């Protein structure tokens, strides 16, 4: 298979998107296995780690690993059981997360293993919470739009303030929440207020946060506290389709709907005093703002375009994969390069979008408290993305010599956050001693976390950890089981002000619909891939 091929200089020109040799051998055995037979491929290596052996799905190149806790273990096994043979196979249904993690391990050029974080759940192509790295020196290695997701560079940023919880209480809390809702365009089909034309959009795609800095939407120090300094240099606006641009031109500075939000939070608990001090959020009761959004319609369109393009190329070349949503292309192929350039441009758009939202949030705060944002100390703590593919260098053990060597990898993180350890060259000076801040968005009404990256995680999961709570209930089930009024009442009892554009989201996004973020974060800490720094709880929520 692909991983045993001798590595050499890149073959040029790469005509076919994928070599024919990677077509997985389809076998009936895979379809007619019983649940017990399926389970024989799973081994629990230690209390937080499941290993899925090669053979679980056709063509696996490496094993797959899932970082678990008891709750998750049960959920995943139930999901696997309900999809096992015996049920109605004709139509409907979806692939269980365990199968999806394993399918990714069957992609050409993958190294070490396909990893799933403890907030994993079934998605499309890659599951949500999947991390996979591909060897850039392997000519067969691939890039997959399904490994990034439709919302390219969806991410979270945290802004601190010098306000205290008591400054934002009672009437003031409602006033602030309403002001945020008025400022930030939320919901389906809402246009942004940032003046844009196609020329501006090209600049946004090329420059990311540097555009916002130029236009005065961002503060110069913001970009220091953002992954990649808010700009991917691989970006090429000419690789973004006209249709995607058309969607992007009206939507800069909009929040979107679904799980995206702006939340005012207070520091609830501090686990690591020193690291919290470095981030400027050193006292319990301090008010912060969390923004969760992505690249909006532009990113979705870029991903769709790439998916259609790669699907066509694979049909042309007669290649079949375990899952059509996993469509991919060799990194060196035209399709692969085109996607990387377009994805980077969409990532830049997402950073610019979050920066414009930050501008609006700062304005809403300064109006409400009649102070300017600088006096409110509204600095960016950090900005992390949890849907992205990046070229990174990682130390890998050479199987022949047993010596570690530095390898250039294309790391796909879908629903997973980068968590680099202390002293890593790619993290800002202020966090060199503490490790990269990792922002974990909780759910409406529960808590969020700031974590820090660890050395162990760097060796174990390519420096990656979880991204949030991860859904546990389906959207329909949430609405059937939960009562709209009751959810609102519970939030009110907790003193949380809320403004939601779509009433449907109140129950769909209720805390009960998600896994417990506390367990997810604790599991990551037990597994050693990140450690807790600060816990935040919401006091005001604005959602699509």
């Amino acid at each position, binding site marked *: 298979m692909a991983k045993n091929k001798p590595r050499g200089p890149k073959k040029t020109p790469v005509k076919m998107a994928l070599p024919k040799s990677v077509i997985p051998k389809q076998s009936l055995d895979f379809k007619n296995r019983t649940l017990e037979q399926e389970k024989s491929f799973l081994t629990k290596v230690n209390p937080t780690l499941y290993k899925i052996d090669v053979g679980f799905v056709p063509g696996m190149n490496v094993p797959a690993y899932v970082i678990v806790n008891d709750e998750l273990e049960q959920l995943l096994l139930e*999901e696997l059981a309900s999809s096992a043979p015996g049920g109605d196979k*004709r*139509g*409907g249904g*979806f692939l269980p997360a365990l199968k999806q993690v394993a399918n990714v391990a069957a992609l050409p050029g993958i190294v070490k293993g396909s990893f799933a974080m403890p907030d994993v759940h079934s*998605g*499309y192509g890659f599951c949500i919470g999947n991390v996979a790295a591909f060897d850039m020196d392997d000519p067969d290695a691939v890039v997959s739009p399904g490994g990034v997701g*439709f*919302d390219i560079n969806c991410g979270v940023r945290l802004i601190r303030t010098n306000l205290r919880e008591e400054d934002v209480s009672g009437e003031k809390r409602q006033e602030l929440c309403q002001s945020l809702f*008025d400022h930030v*365009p939320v*919901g*389906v*089909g*809402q246009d942004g*207020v*940032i*003046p844009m034309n196609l*020329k501006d959009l090209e600049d946004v795609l090329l420059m990311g946060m540097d555009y916002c800095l*130029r*236009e*005065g939407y961002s*503060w*110069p*120090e913001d970009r*220091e506290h953002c992954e990649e300094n808010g700009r991917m240099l691989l970006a090429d606006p000419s690789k973004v389709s006209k249709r995607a641009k*058309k969607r992007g031109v009206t939507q800069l500075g909009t929040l*979107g*709907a*679904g799980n995206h939000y702006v939340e005012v939070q207070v520091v609830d608990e501090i686990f690591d005093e020193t690291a919290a001090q470095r981030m400027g959020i050193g006292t319990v009761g301090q008010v912060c703002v969390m923004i969760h959004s992505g690249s909006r*319609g532009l990113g979705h369109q870029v991903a*769709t375009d790439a998916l*259609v393009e790669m*699907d*066509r190329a694979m049909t042309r070349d007669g290649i079949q994969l375990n*899952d*059509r*949503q996993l469509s991919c292309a060799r990194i060196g192929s035209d399709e692969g390069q085109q996607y990387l350039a377009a994805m980077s441009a969409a990532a830049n758009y997402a950073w610019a979008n979050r920066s414009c939202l930050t501008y*609006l949030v700062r*304005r809403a705060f300064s109006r409400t408290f009649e102070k300017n944002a*600088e006096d409110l*100390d509204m600095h960016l703590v950090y900005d992390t993305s949890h849907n992205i593919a990046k070229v990174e260098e990682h130390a890998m053990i050479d199987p022949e010599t047993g010596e570690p060597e530095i390898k250039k990898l294309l790391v796909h993180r879908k629903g997973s956050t980068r968590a680099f350890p202390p002293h890593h060259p790619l993290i*800002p000076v*202020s966090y060199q001693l503490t490790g990269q801040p990792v922002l974990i968005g909780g759910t409406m009404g529960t808590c969020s976390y700031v974590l820090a990256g660890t050395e162990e995680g760097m060796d174990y999961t390519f420096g990656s950890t979880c991204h949030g709570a991860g*859904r546990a*209930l*389906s*959207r*329909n*089930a949430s*609405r*059937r089981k939960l009562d*709209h009024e009751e959810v609102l009442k519970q939030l009110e009892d907790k003193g949380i002000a*809320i403004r*939601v*554009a*779509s*009433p449907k989201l109140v129950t*769909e996004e209720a805390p009960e619909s998600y896994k417990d973020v506390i367990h997810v974060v604790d599991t990551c800490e037990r597994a050693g891939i990140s450690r807790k720094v600060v816990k935040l709880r919401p006091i005001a929520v604005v959602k*699509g």
Partner: protein
Amino acid sequence: MADNDDDTTASTPLGKRQSSRRDRRAARATETAQATDDVVVVRVSSNSNRGPSDELERRIAASVERRKKSNVAAALLTVDLKESDYNEILGTYEYLDHTADIQLHSWGNSLGEALEALALALFGYMTKLSLIQVNDQDSADFGTDSSISAHDLTSLVFNFLQEWLCIFHESGFVPRTVCVQSVNLETFTVVSSGKGETMKSHKHVQGTEVKAVTYSNLQVIPANNDDDDESSPLDTTGRWDIWVILDI
């Protein structure tokens, strides 16, 4: 700023930085004023050293006013909600459970009918369809003769649904009815039209934003054809079933 490390920036007195930002903002305001005096230029894109424009301030102020007046959020929190307000069924389709996303299942007595129902299922998830009225102008502008081509049956369904989603994202147009005018399974092309209107926040209910259509477990089960033999000619009539997972 790139060569300025964090520690130096953080230790700069706040007042100093504020004043420089204010100066820049003031300087830019003067520039814009001059530019508008000289020629009729609304924006000066080539200038690389300016703060947010006055135009932006005006736009934000106007948008904030608009939203305050509409009072959307306050109204929604008191509204009496029933399950039937979402996911109305106005055709031969249903919504199936999926952990994070939603699965559409539609069917019909021909591929065309199944596709029509599928498109309605998509829009029914985004807004309350029964509130959509037919506006002839909107329908003519955005919903007429949308045509797509594909390379196989699966991509035909994918492209068809994606096209309608794009029409919505580009224009806000939501069809109340969709009519498939022609389906060709040799060239894999579909031409369809819809009648409806563009979505307005004061008139229509906001449902869930659909990010994209996915290939994940996308299944098309043709009439009288239980195996996946795509080489035999397909009958476009008879019961067809389609399953699609949407990314929410």
